[in-house]
């Protein structure tokens, strides 16, 4: 349940920061950078949206945890769980 919720949160954020990206058929285990032609500016926006919407801070050394959709879900689930619970 939580996993699905977190995945939707991430997809929703990607759709906001990259409305021109094709999100259907996105593979969970392939780097987002390669599937969506995203660059460091786009990743900055994902991090900023997480902070803005859920007060989740992703430190710079953890950016690599956001490489794929799957890794986003496993890295962010504990952080978002707390945020969702307090919401």
């Amino acid at each position, binding site marked *: 349940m939580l996993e699905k919720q977190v995945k939707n949160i991430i997809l929703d954020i990607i759709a906001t920061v990259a409305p021109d990206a094709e999100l259907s058929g996105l593979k969970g285990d392939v780097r987002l950078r390669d599937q969506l032609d*995203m660059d460091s500016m786009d990743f900055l926006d994902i991090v*900023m949206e997480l902070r803005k919407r859920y007060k989740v801070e992703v430190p710079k050394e953890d950016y690599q945890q956001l490489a794929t959709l799957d890794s986003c879900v496993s890295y962010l689930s504990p952080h978002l769980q707390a945020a969702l619970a307090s919401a």
Partner: protein
Amino acid sequence: MHYDVVIIGASMSGLAAGIRLAQFDKRVCVVERHYAYGGLNSYYKLDGREFDVGLHAVTNYVPPGDRLAPLNKLLRQLRLSREDFDLRPQRVSEVRFPDRRLRFNNTVDELVDSVVTLFPRDGERFRHLLSDIQAYDDIRQEHPYQSTRKALADRLTEPVLIEMLLCPVMYYGCANEGDMDFTQFVTMFKAIFLQGLARPWGGVRTILKALVRRYRACGGKLQMNCGVEGIEIEDDRVSALTLSGGTTMTADVVLSSAGYFETMRLCSRPSSEPESEKPGRVSFVESIAVLDERPSDLGHDATVVFYNDADTFDYRVPEGFIDARSGVVCCPGNYETCDKSGSHLFRATWLASYRHWAALNSDTYTAAKRSCEEQLVCLGDRYIPDFGDHVEFVDTFTPCTIERFTGRINGAVYGAPKKKLDGKTHLKNLYLCGTDQGFVGIIGSIISGISMANQYCLRDP
């Protein structure tokens, strides 16, 4: 009043930086000395008509799809749509030298065909040059200075071809005289020839209004008629900004789009600059004619013409008011479509000397402008028969006009020759954005504002 970030100048770069910050809930204020926003890319009204300053063309035009192209990247970063900029591509542009016309449009094939036809001996070499340029990483990688003239001479054998390639690239973004850095040449070459030229349907105001609308919608504050008179310093930081009217403002970070030397002039303790660094000198005069018909109905259908009346191209500040032996002619009506205010215009731009214009009094200044307008008619006759009979209205702006409205020393449109790519100054919380940080042109300025805001105000230190 205290802000997270104060931005000096409601320019393209200042507004773009402002959007980035306001979008992520930073308390941000853009202060602008004038009643009009835009800085080096602005517009004015005269005789009930609207005229653009600066913008002949938006370079870097690409269709949707290429997500990493600068245009699409900046729209994404600012959360604007392509409709907001409403760009209309060019039809065809030309580089006109004696007996030779190089034609190009927004497909690179047209340029290649034209080069091969004019310079068959260099056709293959030109294709190699193109693939070198395509593969050259001008954005992420740092390169030492390399002379473009030498880099091109190493790759091509036809001297006139080299001059014809330099001509549009230098006119559309070179702050140096005579030669330019090859990395900067590559950036501009890609922007003009590999991507392309376009114009917002309503001219520069379409883009400016989209930026201001978005900035305000994100909650950003914009203070017009509010000049920064002084940057106060404590230790190695900006402690406060003194504004016109005597009020002060404080901020954690200050981003200045006023120009490097122009910003230093405001500092209560400027940086000790080495002698070698000087403000830019490259400036222009533009004379604009409003015609009674569209240029294309009078037989002239090129969007932009870069002309040069000799086989060598000498890009430098002239020893007189203007140098009309070379220049740029832009007809906004020759983009795919265009609003009413642009459709009948014929704009001519020449290199000009600020020193000469600044020495005039009001009578001689007006006379010098009239003389440019006579040059405009002579030039127009080359493209449109009996050009003078079609002119309904004419206006001219000079390096002094540019200086007055932008505060740029010498009216230097492309800023200082030496760019501060990292945007840093001698103060820890003062950064540059815009022309003196790096890229020029509309897309370049916007990208500059975005990247400086990202780097110094959004990313973790």
